[in-house]
């Protein structure tokens, strides 16, 4: 089994243009998708994020930590939320990503986690 990050990338300005009366439908679709992940036993974690304007960047790689306002990347497209799933292979992950993309009406990037969960040596 392998774990994959499915992150939803989108333009927040575009998202903001979705009429409010369409929100309940989208929320319901995402909730149903979350339920599906759990009942299929592939759910690890998921969450929606607040807007990129709430992000803070910390850089402690130098002598003193530097804290700055704003998202790390100067771009219009940001991660709006993500799922972490555990499935046998990429084909399975792509099938869930397809359903997730339909539910949230956004582009979903599928990226494998490094390594596998450690199994104790026999």
């Amino acid at each position, binding site marked *: 089994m*392998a774990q994959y990050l499915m992150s939803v990338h989108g333009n927040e300005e575009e998202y903001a243009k979705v009429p409010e009366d369409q929100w309940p439908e989208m929320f319901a679709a995402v909730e149903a998708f979350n339920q599906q992940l759990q009942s299929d036993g592939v759910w690890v974690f998921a969450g929606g994020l607040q807007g990129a304007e709430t992000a803070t960047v910390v850089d402690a790689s130098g002598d003193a930590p530097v804290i700055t306002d704003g998202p790390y990347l100067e771009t219009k497209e940001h991660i709006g939320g993500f799922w972490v799933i555990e499935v*046998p*292979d*990429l*084909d399975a992950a792509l099938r869930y990503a397809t359903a997730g993309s339909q539910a949230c009406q956004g582009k979903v990037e599928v*990226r*494998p986690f490094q*390594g596998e969960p450690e199994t104790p040596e026999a």
Partner: protein
Amino acid sequence: MSSGAAGVERVFREEYGRLIASLTRRFGDLDIAEDAAGEALVVALERWPVDGVPPNPGAWLMTTAGNRAIDRLRRDKLRDPKHQAAAMIHDPTPHEPTGVVADDRLRLLFTCCHPALAPEARIALTLRMLGGLTVAEIAAAFLVQETTMGQRITRAKAKIKGARIPYRVPEADDLPERVGAVLAVVMLIFNEGYLASGDGEPVRAELTAEAIRLARLLHALLPGDLETTGLLALLLLTESRRLARVRGGELVPLDEQDRGGWDRALIAEGHALVRACLAADRPGRYQILAAVNAVHTDAPTAAATDWSQVAALYDQLTRLDPSPIVALNRAVAVAELDGPEVALAIVERLPLDGYHAWHATRADLLRRLGRSADARAQYDAALACCDNTAEASYLRRKRGELV
């Protein structure tokens, strides 16, 4: 069979895809498979010229390569116990026929042509892993630096491993789409051979031959898939005209080709496949294009071509794929049926500016209508975006013949 180096390499090339496919299933790693196959070749080059070619060279290579891979895994295990645990695209199922498909090469094809890989990487990986072409040969065929091509293949293999692209035939739901991706790769390999880009040879027969070999393999593995049958027929019927298609470095259009130079055996084989598709009556893109080529190769002379049949086939294709390129091909048949003026009216509406075949078709229709100045401008435009030396020579000659 020759036991010299050339003979050994020919056998190796012939067996390469099978070797890699089977080793990858056993050892779960494309790199291990490639290294083991390469080591088996070295042993064969030493031994066969001395001992003679073994009675079953494929089985000999498989056994030798398998032993080398096991040796390597033992060494790696001594060095790093975690190394083996990290082996990836493993296939937990034992070696048994997966439905109708018993050949590991089909798994390998689907892995190499996975939609999660970049299209150019799919082509390169397929030629490397199934075709047994060297990185240098693939780089030369696609006019890129060997190091660039090497990186492209290495990156694709790293993604297969890292993202766990599975080593298996896709599930039934995904199969039609995934077969489509494999057929597209084979078609692109053929096209690059048939209408080669760049300043080198106008036709690269090694690529058309490799594409046909892959299409034959796919057809043998998926005999019930009609689009696969259609693609093989299309490639055979196109290939049958290859030798008549270029003369003195210049492209010879269909109506000027010496039909005596067409390969009758390939035509007979292609026609039989097209008939099988027609009998099944579930047309798809490649089947229809194969049928168009069957009409052309059926005609004893250019004048005897059944253009109404060609136009009807393109009408059928338009319903599946209403693209301007299909409309352009249909217009060529319309020109024969209804005259160049009607065809030109269709062609000029198509949004294909910058596509060499669009300009070349317009040029030809304008020439036939006696509009030399307009034709000349279109020959110029076609030449500006034409990337095949034989086609460019042909266009230059036609432009020079304008009065």
